[in-house]
């Protein structure tokens, strides 16, 4: 695979660039067969999208003129390896009134940055902290 950016001609990846697609444990599309499933060789992790695939889709979205969508795919790529409970915990903190001050959100952002190298997502959470403070959302709701 070339190092150049992917474009709309590379889409759909599963058909145009199947060799670049694999699950979270590295198992390729051709190795995820009914026989392999029946033999117990396939796990849910093999059916999990990778950060690489999401970045590839971000490049394709960018090439198609959809930079906002590409931004979401890049944030998604950063969350690909973040465990479900961490995601739900941070999501919960971002809901109105859950965090009582900006420090809690800054800690969540720091965790994303430190543990998962999710820099864009971390900056996004910090931005939320700033906005929430400005709009008075650090208030008790229930």
């Amino acid at each position, binding site marked *: 695979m070339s190092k150049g950016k992917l474009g709309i001609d590379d889409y759909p990846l599963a058909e145009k660039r199947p060799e670049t697609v694999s699950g979270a444990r590295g198992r390729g599309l051709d190795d995820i067969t009914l026989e392999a499933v029946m033999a117990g060789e396939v796990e849910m992790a093999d*059916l999990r999208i990778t950060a690489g695939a999401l970045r590839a889709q971000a490049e*394709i979205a960018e090439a198609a003129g959809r930079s*906002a969508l590409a931004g979401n795919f890049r944030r998604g790529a950063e*969350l*690909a390896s973040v465990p479900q409970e961490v995601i739900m915990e941070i*999501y919960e903190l971002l809901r109105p009134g859950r965090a009582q001050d900006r420090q809690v959100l800054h800690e969540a952002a720091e965790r994303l940055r430190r543990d998962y190298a999710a820099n864009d*997502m971390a900056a996004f*959470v910090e931005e939320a902290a700033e906005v929430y403070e400005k709009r008075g959302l650090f208030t008790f709701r229930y």
Partner: protein
Amino acid sequence: MSKSEHFGVNRWRRFDDWDERPLRLDNFAKDDPRNGFSAMNGSNDPASSVRCSGGSITEMDGTAADEFDIIDLFIARYHLDPDRVEEAMALPSAEVARMLVDMNVPRERLVRLAHGMTPAKLAEVVAHLNAMEIAFAYAKMRARATPGNQAHVTNAKDDPLQLAADAATAVAFGFDEIETTMRVSRNAWSNALACCVGSSVGRAGTLFQCSSEEAEELQIGMAGFTSYAETVSVYGTEKSFIDGDDTPWSKAFLAAAYASRGIKMRCTSGAAAELLMGFHEAKSLLYLEARCLCMQRAMGVQGTQNGGIDGAPLASSITGGVRELMAENLIAVWLDLECASGNDARSSESEIRIGAKILPFLIAGSDLICSGFGSILKYDNSFNPSSFNGEELEDYLVLQRDFEADGGLTPRGEDELLSIRRRAVDAIAAVFEELDLGSPDDDMKGSVVAASGSQDTRSYLPGEVSDISGGISERCITVLDVIRALHTRGFVEEAENLLFLVKLRLSGDYLQTSAVIRGGHVISAINDPNAYDGPGSGYRLSAERRAEIAAIRGELDQREVLRAEASFAAAEQQRIAYRTMGPAQRGADDSEVVIGLSPAFGTQLFRTLAGHSLADVLRAVGDGVAEEGGTARFVRFTHTADTSFLGLSAAGLSGSGVGIGLQAKGTAVIHQRDRLPHNNLELFSNAPITTLDHYRALGRNAVRYAAGRDVEPVVVPTNGEALGARYHARVALIYAIETGLTSDGAVPQDIGIDFLGKQTGGARP
């Protein structure tokens, strides 16, 4: 004014009739912009404006940056493209509106401009368009070329067997996505597994979602049962958003979370949500919705479920509300979002309003025309009844055929659907048994296969389902367990289909804008872009697709009509014999009434449109003639099949100068010699509702005309049936059989008639 001038009348009874119409169950709200009741002209709608400084937005729609609420902040940061703002905002709104309906202005150019426009600007532009222009612009601006549709699959008992059968049925009809939800929230896992199994029957690649509590919905997705989500709601005012228990940042975080799991996602917003939630800020439906849509694009979601949704009934109660719903859908696609275009929650009790509402979307096409077509019966729809439901599904299929418009669905035959339902119920039962979740018996299964809705089933009840659902969740059953169970029990094709779908999430191909799966391939705005630049471009029905749409149930052709007639031939031969006696001459008896028979009368056609045996009709007419002292003579004409000319030709041969023309389908006329062909004495044109008594009275009246006596014309009463709709296809086919037997200058033949046996019905004592 004296009392007598009122005639004792205090109401025109038409209002009583109108009061009884389903329409009168609908609410209608007066325009009241201060209280949020305005489609497009809210009392607090701002004029559009924008100011930039150093690459950031310092004012938007009349609000300075330091006064921005969370929505303004999010839109200013993530939607507005500073490089495009100046050009886009400088264009007069009316000019942009004209560009939207100008086929020579490419979609891409308009999309770029939209990314530099504020919510107020977008709303101002689309407000310039009338309803037809909005529909046209929608057809031009929507993202993916091929139209699609989405089904609700739910039932009132959360019965998994029925969910599987109904999911398979929805897949067979061609829905690209199916969505379920529950009556009892803890049944989510059971609903998800059941629909997942059902949707694997018959075809691979139908996307599926289980609408439930946010965290659980994501977990169900992680277990591989679902492939998309659309319940991520956004609102157009800050207070509504907060009451919705989210912020643009929390929702955008969720959007990234769904992407990170390879699950397709769209947001939901729609007119009147803020009005329902009590925080409308005296702004119009359209302006608030423009804010919602800019926010969704800003979040980076690929699409939206938009166009009223739960607020559609309220929006529809407002003047111009339905036009507004169309306008907000247009803003969605103009912003380059996938649009699941509402036509979802039933917005009226009037079938006419519902039919009118769907038409622009049906002919314009949409990524998902309904964001929830109720594939099940209304009472089984756990979201609430949809605009179209199981009851009206065939109406929709016929609308597709009428307009040669692809509404995403394909007619299916009875045998095919029955076998699909059997297969789905067998499959889910096998999975339950393999996974120790239950073992439904044959009575349960049979009742579900045949059931139109859950009131017909003897299957699981919601409480039993909760145990199943708990089992799936607690034992962490995943889609891989389901695939293995299917395969083990011989449902190999279904196992393959399910594996195909879950493998798709690895590439993320269906995360791109407007992605669905057709024929085993992902199609989206990337590889199936809508490129409309005038007639002949954009999405067109292929010959193959047109044939699919055309093949509705119960189409007639001439062979079918002749086959049906032939089935009556034998019985008719037991009732009557026709003898050809030779060329007919003009009679001399002044009491004679000639009854002129059409070419196929009793030779190829044997009953009237009302279903009367032709023998009975002739007997009735003849009896009527005799009752008044006349003499009937039967003559067959083959130079014409037209009622008027049959009647006039019969009158010409009749000794009295009065004749009757009679077509096999039952249309009859009394005619008199020397009148103009279409100026007859009496015409019975409504054959489908003409009784034998009417034919007898016709015979009597013919004699009375001949004798110059007073005549009370026979009136065949109608109840306003659409007889043309009910019969004209058959009429045209029947009439072609009649005209096919005519030849120019053919000589009329006297016919001797022998009535055999007894009359079959409808007769006098």
